[in-house]
């Protein structure tokens, strides 16, 4: 196998791996921003194979396509940011699984399986109040910030 073909082969495989990892991230992660990053990772995989083909075919076309991929990715990022921000403002969470109110009429809603709380080691010790005064109860900890 000549070096040029070997290079093409390797680039294509790395591109495929990036695309596949992006797919896995897109399908399994629920954080909207991570999902978007995963989608961008898929585009990176495509770009890699395009650049490799471009070199192999000795033609600028592939690189052109990559330039436009980057430009479009920038546009999509802008939209995504706007969208994620407004969605976050509404629900206070970045969880995409919150957004499945639109579905077939008789289908059950997606329910999170309960998981053990993340045990934090540095739980603040309760401080004693002066005698005769009701002790202050620490505020309930939410796992998100209600507002930006």
């Amino acid at each position: 196998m000549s070096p040029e073909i070997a290079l093409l082969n390797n680039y294509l495989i790395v591109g495929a791996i990036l695309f596949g990892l992006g797919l896995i991230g897109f399908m399994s992660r629920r954080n909207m921003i991570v999902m978007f990053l995963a989608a961008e990772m898929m585009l990176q995989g495509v770009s890699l194979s395009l650049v490799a083909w471009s070199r192999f075919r000795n033609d600028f076309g592939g690189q052109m396509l990559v330039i436009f991929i980057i430009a479009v990715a920038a546009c999509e990022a802008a939209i995504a940011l706007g969208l994620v921000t407004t969605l976050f403002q509404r629900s206070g969470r970045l969880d995409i699984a919150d957004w499945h109110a639109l579905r077939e009429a008789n289908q059950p809603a997606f329910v999170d399986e309960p998981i053990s709380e993340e045990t934090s080691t540095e739980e603040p010790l309760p401080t004693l109040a002066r005698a005769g005064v009701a002790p202050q109860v620490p505020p309930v900890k939410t796992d998100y910030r209600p507002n930006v």
Partner: protein
Amino acid sequence: MPEISQLLPLIPALPLAAAMLTAVLGPRLLRKQSHWPTVLALALSCTASLMLLCKVHREAGQEEYERSGYEKIVTLYTWANVDEAYESDLRLRSPEGTVVISQGRKPLENGRLRQQSPEGATVNSRRDDSNKDSLATAAPLGLYNSEVIPFQGFTSLANDCRPEGTKKQGATIKNFRIEIALRADPLTAVMLAVITFVSTLVAIYSIGYMHGDPGYWRFFSYISLFVFSMTMLVSASNFLLLYVFWEAVGLCSYLLIGFWCEKPAAAAAGMKAFLVNRIGDFGFALGIFLIWTTFGTLDFHDSTAMGVLGKMRLASPEPIVNGAVGTAICLLLLLGACGKSAQFPLHVWLPDAMEGPTPVSALIHAATMVTAGVYMLARCMPLFAASPFALHAVAVVGGLTALIGAVVAITQTDLKRILAYSTISHLGYMFLAMGAGTVLGVTAGMFHLVTHAFFKALLFLAAGSVMHAMGGVIDIRRFGGLRRIMPVTHWTFLIGGLAMVGMIPFAGFYSKDAILLAVAEKFSFGNHVDLVYQTLYWTTFGGIFLIAVYTFRPFLLTFYGKDTVIPPEAGHHAHESPLSMTGPLVILALGAAFLGLYLEKTGGLAEFLAGTPSVAYLNRYPLAPEPSHETLESLHSSIGRQSTVMVAAGILFTIFLYAGSRRRLADRLAGPMKRLGLYQLSFGKLFFDPLYRLFVVRPLELFAQACAWFDNRFIDGSVNLVGILPKLLGAALRPLQGGLIQFYALAMILGVLIFLGVLLL
């Protein structure tokens, strides 16, 4: 007297105009007077039809049409036409008149580009040879007329451009030309006369029946629209047009069945009728597509190409496609006919369709619309004649339906429903006649169609009259003895009933015997014994007995009995119907009584119908050696005698059961029996009655009930299942749409992977 070309368009045009006028003016202006446009238009249309009938009769009698049949085509408008588009394209690109393939459309050869010789000259020089060549190949296939076809040069060119070995008859070339062409031939003329005549009477009847209905104008508008569609259906000279009005008739039926849409049952029945019909239409549409790809045209008559049922094709020695394709076309057409004519197993919509107003039942579901399937079979007879299997299928479907309808009708208690099943049964008889595939069969079927239209419309209208008087109650167990308050209805119903059972000399007798004769002819003569027809003959012959039973059972229960039983819904004003309702009844009764006799004795109808090109074709190429006239006559008279005995037995049996058992028989027979002696009377009461009950009545009733159960549960269920199956499939697929983006992405990727896997592995 106006010409055919003037009369023919007038017949559908008048009802259409009436429908539009009523729809526009009805709600505001006409209101209670909304019937006028419809009644006037239908009456005029009927006059025109009768004039057309005379005209066609006169012209078809001429000698030149004796062999090939008579037809006249009136082309109104070219609806869709693509080859004209192409023609202008050619003209645009080649002003000198030489045909050059346009640059942008150079055909590919073996998927390769730019292989074509670019010089138009080469193509041109080769054109003459190829023209001959394509003609030579095309002529035996019977696809092209011997006359010059406008686009022949182009067709041969197109053939020429194809790779060798794929030269075909050019069915894919879209010489796509749908003309709104109406035809006048004996078959159409008869159908038109029957449709418009019955419709006119029904419209007049409806004036009284629908009086005071909030949707008065709507009803008449629909009726006119229906008559328009139906007249177009029978006069269309094109399969596509036939299909269009096939659907339009179904649509009108949907609207009319669901007319009283406040009743959920009515809306459901309308929906059911439409959907079951769609199953049939599905077959019909496929059949038309298959005809298109096989014949390359959809016209009945010869126009630019040889029509499917055109005289040219019928005149050539081996004109009709046979073999698997021909059988497939016929079976698909049969499926369509089964849907519209309520034949087994698509008959389930007709009984439910009785939810509509009674005039609708009379008009659509007895006299006209349901005969569309019979008409279509008669029209396409040359196609069926080429496929014995398809003919058998038609006959078997008809025979089976005739039996099923009759058996189920015995136990029903709803007067209209009984009549609906009887319609199914009689349509089965007509199909059976068509299934004979002979001139005798077709004319017999059409004969029965005509007489049936009269007596069934009569019976339905009479039933409607009863229903009108009884305040909407239609259950025969809830009234009785009505002959006293409704004498006209009683007598007309009796005449209709006698015509339906086929009592000599009423109309049904002659037409029914003609059918039996046509079937008997299939196995009585010639060398081979056709078991299918023989079985069907004896089955349907037995069916005559059942007809008598199910006709006279409701008749006796409704009109006879010691006391006049009137349900409370009728109130105190149970009375004979107004003149607008009884008038049509009397006219129809006259028809039911004497029409058969007239047509039979003059022999005009059969002879006249045999002048239709499709029917004349059967005469020219008989499937079996024709028996002599005398043997046929003797067979006919013996069938007549046998069937009369059968009918009489059936009627007497029914009288014995429903008027005779218990009080009624005693009452009626009291006088003569006393003269004969009390002993016999008591003997008869003690002995015959239980014996009959045990050995005849019970089994018959049980059988009928089993059939009804089977029909309702199994046939209806399986037809419903066809409707429900997609819904179940949908239910199974619904969980896919869970709303999670993640899942959607996963499904998309899974789809990609499956495609990749199938392609790569």
